[in-house]
């Protein structure tokens, strides 16, 4: 549906998007995840023809955006991060204008406003300049939804929305998914990605560092997850033992031994510790949240750091057990 091939976009010597390639399948909800300045918005703007890539190409249903932007744009609708409308016009006038540009009937406006719980009767004569930022963003979302297109591209859609707006947005996106629409959105709100996306691409400094399903990313993380072992008899010797049996990282923290290992080595390490005299009270491997996975990719924070600082690991999110021999 959307093919991004080796796209590079440079701003004053800085590679905002650096050789990114990805494909978004038809009917899929796809998230671009990354910190501020990671290139998410730039990539979306390249897709929408607002920016011209320095190299690479983007195709939408086989239509190259660079060579036929109008045809490509007729398949997509876009919600920018910040919307702006002429302040003197009313909400109804703005919606009517965009509906006319898209060739949509005026009945469509009422339907979209109902979907977003925008009270058109109350808003119809209200100048845009008097709206709150949350309401303004909802009007922007309404403009994006006016177009009956197969692809919706949303740049940080929840950023300026109030809680009711976020709730409505999630409901609307769920409806669009049911209808088989393709949704591509960027976000740094991990809970949005976790609940909405089928697949996620992680961008850091313009580079694509991961592209998988949310579950796939978690699995990847589990492969080198951290295990925390509570010991009755903590001893530096157990650190050495863990290293010897395959742990890539190990250390003592109070009465706990923390080690990072492949999932396949975990049991062997625990058995070796026990054989070496360690008296294990409990152990657990935290179920990684998307946040941990994400921070691991952006290189700023890891689950290990969180544990080092003694952050609480929720019991529900762990794979816990007694000593392996039990």
């Amino acid at each position, binding site marked *: 549906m959307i093919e991004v091939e080796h796209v590079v976009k440079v701003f004053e010597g800085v590679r905002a998007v650096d050789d990114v390639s990805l494909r978004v399948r038809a009917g899929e909800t796809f998230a671009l995840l990354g910190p501020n300045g990671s290139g998410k918005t730039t990539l979306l703007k390249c897709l929408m023809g607002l920016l011209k890539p320095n190299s690479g190409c983007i195709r939408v249903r086989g239509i190259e955006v660079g060579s036929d932007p109008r045809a490509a744009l007729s398949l997509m609708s876009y919600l920018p991060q910040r919307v702006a409308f*002429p302040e*003197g016009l009313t909400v109804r006038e703005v919606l009517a204008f965009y509906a006319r540009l898209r060739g949509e009937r005026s009945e469509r406006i009422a339907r979209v406003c109902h979907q977003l719980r925008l009270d058109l009767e109350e808003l119809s004569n209200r100048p845009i300049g008097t709206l709150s930022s949350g309401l303004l963003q909802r009007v922007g979302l309404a403009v994006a939804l006016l177009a009956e297109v197969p692809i919706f591209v949303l740049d940080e859609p929840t950023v300026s929305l109030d809680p009711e707006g976020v709730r409505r947005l999630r409901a609307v996106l769920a409806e669009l998914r049911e209808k088989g629409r393709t949704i591509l959105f960027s976000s740094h709100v991990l809970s949005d990605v976790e609940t909405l996306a089928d697949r996620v691409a992680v961008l850091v400094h313009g580079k694509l560092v991961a592209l998988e399903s949310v579950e796939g990313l978690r699995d990847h993380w589990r492969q080198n997850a951290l295990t925390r072992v509570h010991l009755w008899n903590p001893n530096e010797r157990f650190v050495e033992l863990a290293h010897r049996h395959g742990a890539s990282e190990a250390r003592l923290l109070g009465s706990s031994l923390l080690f990072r290992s492949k999932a396949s080595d975990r049991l062997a390490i625990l058995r070796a510790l026990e054989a070496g005299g360690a008296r294990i009270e409990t152990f657990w491997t935290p179920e990684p949240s998307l946040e941990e996975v994400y921070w691991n990719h952006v290189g700023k924070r890891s689950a290990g750091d969180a544990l080092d600082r003694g952050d609480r690991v929720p019991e529900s999110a762990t794979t816990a057990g007694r000593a392996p021999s039990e």
Partner: protein
Amino acid sequence: MGTIATLALFEMKVHIRNRWVLVFAFVFGFTAVAIAAFGLATAGVAGFQGFARTTASLLNLALYVIPLVSLMMGTMSFAGEKNAGELLFVQPIARESLVWGKLLGLMLSIAIATGSGFGLAGMIIAARVGSAGVTRYLLFVGHALLLALAFLALGILVAIASARKPRAFGYALFLWFFFVLFYDLLVIGLTFLVPEPIANRLVFLSLFGNPVDLVRVSGFMTLDNPTIFGAAGVMLVKFFGGEGWAHVALIVGTILWGILPAWLAQGLLRRQDI
């Protein structure tokens, strides 16, 4: 309704709603009435002056004010849009349509402001001194609109060519100074450097390099006063084989000043990052 018409009506609605049109209609109307009412005061005569004298005074004033207003409006309409108007640029419409639609919308806004301002003033003048010379007054309004077209297009070009809004306004002000104040000084300076026959030709040709001069000459021709431009005016009439054709050439020249910058602007916008 076509895309350009939709964009133009939207643009016009924006300017009417933010009261810009009302303010300029008032300014134009008030100025025309004030000139008519007090124009004879310097000659020690009390009372309204007729359309002919009022038009001559208004023309001189319009040659300063209309370019400035139009440049600012043209610049503002795109310099703001490029940063905040992403929603407009992602609609499946050609970027060329955006330029022509906005230009048309701005033109309609200025037409409403000048039409209602000068129209109301014209009615007041006609009620006081009669309608003699009203055709010249109406032709003056037409000239003011042509001048507005040229400078709106230049404003749009400047806004699209400039990366940042403040820079765009800087260039727009420079253009105003250049065309309204410096251009004629530059041409006069050049005439001192060349022999007289070439100098006359230079002055004649230089008219087409400045929309303000085109409208000035064309406007004074409608006031039956082409000789005010001396040898260059005579050469102009002679070259085009009569006053009528010279007038047509001046008007076509001004319209081209409205079309060419807009055409360049749409070419730039098509290739540009938003």
